Structures are given as C-alpha cells and as structure tokens.
C-alpha cells in the first residue's frame, strides 16, 4: 500500500520550531525532522522521549569495574600470588590500591565504548550504510519536516504548512510502507 508523506522545507531554525509547535497543536503526525545541526529544544517541542543512553552507560561502567576486579583477583591473587617487590598479594583488599588505576580505566573504557556502540546500534549507523537523507540541502542550510499525510486532506494540510512559513512543500508517494 502506498503511503503519502509531505515534505516541508524551512530555511530558519526558529521558523522550524514554531512550525513544529503548530503542526503538533493541529495533531498532525510528524514522521521525522531533518536538520543540518542540532536545534536546541527541538526534541522537547516534538515530544520525543528522553534518551536512556546515560543509564546504559552507567551499567556498562559497572560491568567494566566487575571485569577489572575479577580479572586482577584471579591473576594476581588466586592464580599465581607472587611476591613482586614486597606487594602484599595475600588478598585482594590488601593490594587494592595498586589495582585502582586499572579498575578506573576499565570502568571508563567499558562505559564509553559500549555506550558509543549502543548509540550506533540504536540509531542504525554503520559504515556503508545507505544515507537516508531525503534532500541534500538538509545537510547544509535547510530544515525538512516530514509529515504523514495519511488520511488528511492534502490541500488543507499544504495550505496549513504554507502558513507556518514553509519555503517548499512537496508530496512524496512511498512505494512501500516501511
């Protein structure tokens, strides 16, 4: 089934913010907004849920800390507790200050890298990925709002978008729904 999307292009981020507010007030569904740079507060006016990536990062950090502790406890204390320069290898806690730099670094390493990878996976970013940009100008100086035309009256919607200050409005027919 073919679906229709309306692409409205703006050339000013303040105008875009205003338009997003108006479109949402009229209960049209915004599929996506493409901008060349982060527009401060856009997520709030679009009503997007806050990110949970910081929470994942915290948990990855705990994983890293656990890995560091288990690794060094096994290597330095359990497997081969050598006397290296008089350091007390009798129990983990006795020699812990020497392990803290590694515990710290692995916590940061896991928290940072796994969070970045999570970000790539969730936002579907990888090398050789086909760019999803509907209009090349949106990477330079234009802002594009994609609105689901759905069962709305296209003429009325176009008129409404024109009144919000859209510079260009085009109707896109998608071959297949995805």
């Amino acid at each position, binding site marked *: 089934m073919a679906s229709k999307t309306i692409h409205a292009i703006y050339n000013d981020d303040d105008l875009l913010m205003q338009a997003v507010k108006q479109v949402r007030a009229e209960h049209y569904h915004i599929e996506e907004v493409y901008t060349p740079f982060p527009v401060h507060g856009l997520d709030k006016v679009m009503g997007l849920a806050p990110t949970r990536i*910081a929470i994942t990062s*915290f948990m990855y950090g705990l994983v890293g800390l656990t890995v560091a502790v288990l690794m060094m406890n096994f290597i330095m204390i359990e497997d081969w507790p050598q006397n290296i320069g*008089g350091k007390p290898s009798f129990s983990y806690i006795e020699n812990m*200050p*020497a392990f*803290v730099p590694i515990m710290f670094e692995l916590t940061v390493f896991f928290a940072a890298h796994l969070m970045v990878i999570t970000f790539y996976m969730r936002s579907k970013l990888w090398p050789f990925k086909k760019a999803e940009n509907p209009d090349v100008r949106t990477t330079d100086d234009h802002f594009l709002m994609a609105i689901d035309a759905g069962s709305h009256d296209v003429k009325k919607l176009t008129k409404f978008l024109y009144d919000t200050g859209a510079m260009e409005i085009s109707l896109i027919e998608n071959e297949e729904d995805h």
Partner: protein
Amino acid sequence: MYTLPSKLKLFAIIFMVVGAIGIVSGFLTAPSTTAEVKEMMASHGDGHGSDQSTAEESHSTNENHNAEGNLGDEHAQVANEHGENAHDSEEAHLEHTLHQMQNRPWSALYIACLFFLFIALGTLAFYGIQYAAQAGWSPVLFRVMEGITAYLPVASVILFVLLLLSAFHVNHIFHWMDPELVDPNSPHYDKLIAGKSGWLNVPFFLIRAAIFLAGWNLYRYFSRRNSIKQDAADDNSWFKKNFKMSAGFLVFFIVTESMMSWDWIMSFDPHWFSTLFGWYVFAGMMVSAITVIAMVSIILKKQGYLEFVNDSHIHDLAKYMFGFSIFWTYLWFSQFMLIWYANIPEEVTYFVTRIEDYKLPFFGMLVTNFVFPVLLLMNSDYKRVNWFVILTGVVILAGQYINLFVMVMPGTVGTSWFIGLPEIGSILFFFGLFVFVVFTALTKAPLLAKRNPFMKESKHYHY
C-alpha cells in the same frame, strides 16, 4: 531585603551557648597531671575505653615512636635514655598521654575553627572564579556567596588568636614551636625540625598567617564594596574593577592557600611532607564551600527570598559538588597510593598512624566524601531535587570535617582521640557563630545584585 528571622537568631545563639559549654567542659575535664591520667586510664579500663587503653598499652612497649611523628620523638629519646628503667618509661608514657589529652580540646577547637574558615574561604575563591570566568549562571547567587564570605573576617580573627596562643605556648598543638627542639644543646634536639626552622619558626609563621588572612580579607572587603556600588552605578566600571581584582586574587589565593596548608595543617606532622597537600586541602575546602552555597541558597529559596534562583542553578551547584567530591577523592587517592606503593619509611608513617589508630574515620570519610555523593548526585534529575542536595550536602560536610580531623588529630593527640564533648562542642559553637554571622550579613544588602552585566542571563538561566 532579607530580614533575619528571630527564630534563626535564637537557634544560632543556642548553638553557640551549648557549644561554648561543651568547649569549656572539654578544657576542664582535660587532665593536668600524670596522676590524673593514671586515674582516668584506670577508670576507663572497662567499658568503652578498653580498646583505647590497650592501644596505649601497646604504645608504651613498642618501638614505633617515630611513627608517632610529633610528640613521640621527644619521649622516644627520654624513653631510650632510661630504657632499662621500667618506672621511668611508665612515667614517660603517662606524660606522653597527658600531653595528648591536654592537646585534645585545643585541637578540637582548632579543627572546627579551620573548618568553618575554609567554608568562607572556599566560597570566596569560588566567587572570585565566577567573576574572573564571567559566569553567566551565577550572578543571582552572588549575594548569597557574599553573605557566606562575611564569616571570613570573624573566622580570621579567631584563628589568628588561636595561632597566637600556640605561639605563646599556651597550648602545644604545634609541636615544632617548642624551642628545645631546635637547640643543639638540648636533650630534645630534633635535627629534622631544626633543619626546617628556616621556614617553621614562630615569628615568620605568624607573619605569613597575617599576610594570608589580610590578603583574603582585603579582597573580600573590596569585592563586596564594589559589588554594592555597582548596584547604584550607571556604568560597569565597578564590575570591571571586580573582574580585574578577582583575577589577581585567584593568583594570590592559590599561592597562599598552598603555603597555608603547609603551615596550618601539614606542620602538625613536621617530619612529614607531601607535594600535593595544598591541592588536597583546596579540594576539600571547595567541596564544602560549594555545598554550603547550595544549602544556603535552597534555604533562602524555600523562604521565598531568591525569586530568580531556579532548579537549574541548584543543578549547577550540585554538579560542582559532585565534581569536586570526585576531585577530592582523586587527590586523596593520589597522595595515599603514591606513598603506599613506594612505602618509604619516613613518608609512610603518616598513613601507618592513620590506618592503625584512625581506621574508621580515615576510611569512613571515603564513603561520605566519595561513594555517597557519586551515587546520589550522578543522576541528572536528583541534582534538581532540593532535599536530595541538602541530604548529600550534610553527609559531605560531615565527611569534610572528618577529613580535617584525620589531618590534624594524629599529629596532636595521637591515639587519645575521640569525637566527644570538646569536638562536638566546638562544632556546635562555630556552627552557631557561622549561621549568625552569615544570615546577619545577608540582611545588609538586597539579595539580588542589580546592575551586574550578566544578571539578565543569570535570571533566565536554564539548563
């Protein structure tokens, strides 16, 4: 304009009176002769004093006197000379304990005095940073900070009096001030302390203290004056003066703060030295100061006096509390780990005494100053919850007091420490005084500085 609630005034006065009673009774219960010490040790033999007396017991027999740092040496020599004579060593030990017990109320007073002085001084440094960095978020809090720094002149006078009392041998908390230690003909001659007497001598010590205190107070006086003049001005000249003065003050501050930490804290262990000590003291000072700024702001906001302070300002302060807690821990660990790792005897004694005699406060403060704030203030939403900030702030302040306690006490009272009447009395007294001075100062000027060029940005600050 803020008016001082009469309840708060009464509250502060009650604290001061109760605290003063605690301080005085601390001095009265300190023993004055070795016979009294013997009696006290006997009566404390059972009950809570038992582990203290066993600690004393091992102390009298061990040869670890140089680990004691200060008072130990004097008596170590006495004990060595009469090594065979059991009675003499017993007497020397009692005298040793007597000195520790006599030092205790003085140390308690000194720590509490320094603790609240550091809050005012840290706030002053933070205030200077806000000016020099031309911060856009904080001008609505400037009057709160100025109110807190109003305690600085009061604290400076009290501290200087305490230092003078030490210099005139009214008390013996600064061990190196004993003139016998630098006299080569004396049996108590201490070569190490004598070698440092170019820096650690009483007149120079007092001159330095006077310069530090005078410099800080001058900046505090003129920045406050300029800030109030700026309210009525029609250009930004007073702001510019403050900006330049802040930059100069920060340079002066970091130099004097470092030397101050050697003089007022590190010299309690005159055989020991650490290069990052000044930073370590600074970090503790800053985290307590920012905590107090946040707490006073929240209290004033609750009472409806800070119209333009919103959750974003509190959020920023909480981020600073979080960041400086970690910074403090970083320096604590860097100092501890380097010395633990290398384990050089003359350096490691500092931590040996602390871990053996102060285990709970020494490691407990890591929980209050690091684990607690990190877990509670990591979440962005929690930093905006005011009672969370207050709760964490109370724990951080308690931890920073312990921090100072563990820095000072081992060098002055050694194993005879306890957090009892003199310590709590001193805290209560200075807390009451602090609250009284700060909240009185807040009534002296409008709580919103008027013509600060960044004021509009600060009023609309939103994170």
